[in-house]
């Protein structure tokens, strides 16, 4: 006869020396629920837990354990969720008995570490904040660190920029960027560090801020949930300010609309964090109270509606991975934004670059989309214009500008033998730290190689079918690249893509073919900059079509 899951679990738990079954496991809705007591040497008083086991157990679900150990009395201890669930992340096992053994031992470890020894973690965790909605809509507010030291009880206004409307879970969401903080007289105190693209967004909104210094929390971990908890935190003049603001909003016929209240406090590493409460105009949590024949403003009781707030400073945005600062902090110019150039641009931006200028005379046509970083939806546009927009949409920190393409395509060549024009061109190019020449224009390559430059120039091009990628560094560009293409690399230029109605055949290669080579090249270039290694020219070979393998050959 097949032994029931409940019996296996019960028997297994009974077999654990430090666990006593207090009440047997029963099926309650989808849970198998029971009560246990943990007792072992070193633990003065046994601890009681409700245990809830989901049907998925021992598998995880939504990246969470499907067994819950719950004790509401332990909220004051580290890694306990608001409902009293102990937060454990344990080893993977698909075997029920083994997993039970692992999880109960993890619970025991938590008790030793955080209940008995009261250990502190080095890693800071943000307050646990419920995600409320306001009139069936969620709100998010992102901000960056700013160059300003807020003092306790500072208050004023927050300028916001609308980001977008979307869907979050089963609800609509409105996303805002924090633009700047101004004092109650309207003087700007601090500005968030977004790119001009976002800063110049005309859709402006605003909110109110107060800096309270200490985290608005109980047990150092859970955000306060009722306005009455702020009675000792908000001073009278701030409440008066709130009252005046609300009166003003009502006069402007904004009754019923949402006003975000940023509540700031210090966190480790000299940073501040903002939690954002949502106030409804006409229902601010304040009331007028007559005291000694004078009206004063007091906080009322009531649940706080919390929004979602995010610190999206550069260090967090690119915290998971970025290129070396020897690249990202440099002023970069990309000339030629076809397949290679647009992939270079997109990768640099995704890897943290802050200043990128683009130059190309070409227009983007639908056929370009399949292997370059462009989108069909934008129709026929200037390549620079579209890529500028795409890059700005990708990173809120990159400043992208377009460069007068006539300069490179026409003037630089026409006036190449004029010393003054050449000097001017040198000065212009030297105003950058790094140039990526992805034009495949041999004449421009020659022009640039002839200049006296103090900046880095990196030239990238590929052969038909993306069989090889050639990368050359100034000042060894023209001779090397032409020699490779003329003498060394054996490319087939007969099998080209030659669509009907087109006089100009183009090379064959997919996005995958090109991107693979460009990413490998960029990875190598990043390494050279990161480790300050000599910038030797290199060729990446892919081998034959039936025996594909990448090989980087340095010269």
């Amino acid at each position, binding site marked *: 006869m097949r032994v029931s899951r409940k019996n296996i679990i019960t028997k297994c738990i009974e077999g654990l020396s430090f666990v006593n079954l207090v009440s047997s496991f029963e099926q309650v809705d989808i849970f198998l629920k029971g009560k246990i007591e943990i007792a072992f040497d070193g633990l003065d008083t046994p601890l009681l837990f409700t245990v809830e086991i989901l049907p998925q157990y021992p598998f995880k679900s939504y990246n969470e354990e499907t067994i819950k150990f719950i004790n509401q009395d332990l909220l004051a201890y580290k890694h306990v969720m608001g409902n009293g669930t102990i937060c454990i992340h344990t080893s993977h096992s698909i075997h029920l008995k083994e997993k039970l053994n692992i999880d109960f031992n993890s619970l025991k470890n938590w008790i030793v570490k955080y209940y008995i020894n009261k250990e502190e973690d080095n890693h800071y965790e943000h307050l646990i904040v419920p995600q409320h909605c306001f009139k069936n809509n969620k709100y998010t507010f992102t901000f960056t660190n700013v160059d300003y030291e807020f003092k306790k009880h500072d208050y004023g206004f927050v300028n916001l920029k609308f980001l977008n409307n979307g869907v979050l879970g089963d609800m609509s969401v409105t996303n805002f960027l924090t633009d700047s903080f101004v004092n109650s007289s309207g003087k700007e105190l601090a500005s968030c560090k977004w790119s001009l693209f976002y800063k110049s967004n005309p859709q402006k909104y605003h909110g109110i801020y107060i800096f309270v210094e200490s985290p608005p929390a109980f047990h150092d971990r859970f955000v306060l949930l009722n306005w009455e908890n702020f009675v000792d935190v908000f001073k009278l003049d701030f409440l008066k300010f709130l009252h005046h603001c609300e009166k003003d909003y009502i006069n402007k016929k904004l009754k019923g609309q949402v006003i975000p209240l940023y509540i700031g406090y210090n966190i480790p590493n000299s940073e501040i964090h903002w939690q954002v409460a949502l106030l409804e105009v006409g229902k601010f949590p304040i009331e007028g109270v007559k005291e000694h024949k004078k009206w004063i403003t007091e906080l009322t009781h009531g649940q706080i509606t919390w929004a979602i707030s995010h610190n999206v400073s550069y260090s967090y945005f690119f915290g998971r991975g970025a290129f070396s600062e020897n690249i990202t902090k440099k002023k970069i110019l990309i000339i030629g934004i076809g397949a290679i150039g647009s992939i270079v641009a997109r990768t640099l931006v995704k890897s943290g670059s802050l200043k990128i200028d683009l130059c190309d005379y070409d227009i983007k046509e639908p056929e370009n989309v399949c292997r370059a970083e462009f989108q069909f939806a934008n129709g026929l546009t200037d390549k620079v214009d579209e890529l500028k927009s795409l890059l700005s949409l990708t990173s809120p920190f990159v400043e992208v500008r377009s460069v007068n393409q006539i300069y490179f395509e026409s003037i630089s060549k026409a006036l190449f033998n004029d010393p003054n024009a050449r000097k001017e061109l040198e000065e212009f190019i030297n105003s950058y730290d790094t140039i990526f020449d992805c*034009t495949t224009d041999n004449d421009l390559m020659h022009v640039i190689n002839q200049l006296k430059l103090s900046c880095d120039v990196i030239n990238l091009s590929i052969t038909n079918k993306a069989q090889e990628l050639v990368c050359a560094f100034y*000042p060894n560009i023209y*001779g090397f690249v032409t*020699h490779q293409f003329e*003498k060394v690399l054996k490319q087939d230029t007969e099998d*080209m893509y030659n669509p009907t109605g087109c006089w100009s055949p183009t090379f064959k290669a997919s996005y995958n073919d090109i991107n693979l080579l460009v990413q490998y090249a960029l990875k190598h270039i990043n390494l050279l900059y990161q480790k300050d290694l*000599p910038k030797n020219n290199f060729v990446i070979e892919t081998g034959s079509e039936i025996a594909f393998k990448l090989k980087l050959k340095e010269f």
Partner: protein
Amino acid sequence: MNITKSEHLENVLQTHRMTHIEDLLKKYREKRQDIKEAIEAEYSSDIYNPLNSGSYAKHTAINSKFDLDVMIPFKRDAFMTLEEMFNDIFDFLQEKYGSVAEVIKQKVSIGIEFYADDNGDIISIDIVPGRELNTGQYEDDHKLNLYVNSNYGELEAQSYIQTNIHAQIDHIKSKDNERKIIRLFKVWKTTNNENYKSFLLELITIKAFDKENIKGNLWEKLKAVMEYIRDHITKDNFTLKDPGNGGNDIADTLEDYEKRNLSNKMKNMLERIEDNEDNLKHYFPTNPDFEDEDKNGNGYGKKSGAASLFSRPPKNERFG
């Protein structure tokens, strides 16, 4: 490659010979003579006979990039300090040639680069002032102290360096094989914008021939020297003694990472040439100004894409 590697390298040396630029060289010699005479007139009894030095004197010069060097041996009591000597001759040359040339203080020499003449030729002469160590000693052993212009390079560089140009020239005398390799390295260094000092490449080449049994054709000899550099430059006890000053180890002028880079460079070059012989032409190109057209009838130097068909990209087309 339609010709052998050795044939190509012989061609490289041939097209880089100084004899191709006899007319230009004549201008150089005249300028050098003019400067020598001016210095002799100015300093007369304070100096010994000026001496031609540098690559031209050592027969290791190449025609694509060179200058002429003149060593001026000052007597011990001509100046109180080496710095005074250096500044005094600089002031003199500046006064004398400042209106027709750029006169600049370099690390141990004073460079005189004449403005382009009617044919567009720019003549460049380096003057290296040195002072004997003790009164009259130069005539016995030719040792000199050079002033090291510390403003030019490293902050904590020493203020003087001892040298012996005669010994340096003797060191390479009658070493035809070594000279060929040194000239090839100069071609490599010039066309690939490498910063390694010619003197270092000269000494390491001579040492390679001295330590290893290097024989065979020109490519085999070059390859052997490149392998020697690849395998030895990074070794802890590797030294390159200056024949003009036994206490001066030229290998020490490279930082450890620069030695690693040079070794790596040789490794890359050897591997790339092994991969494809045509890469040899990238590292060691002929001087196109002096190529013998008849010799190149086999296709060398011809652009393969030049005759491509209308509306089909040439073979050398780049894409991106």
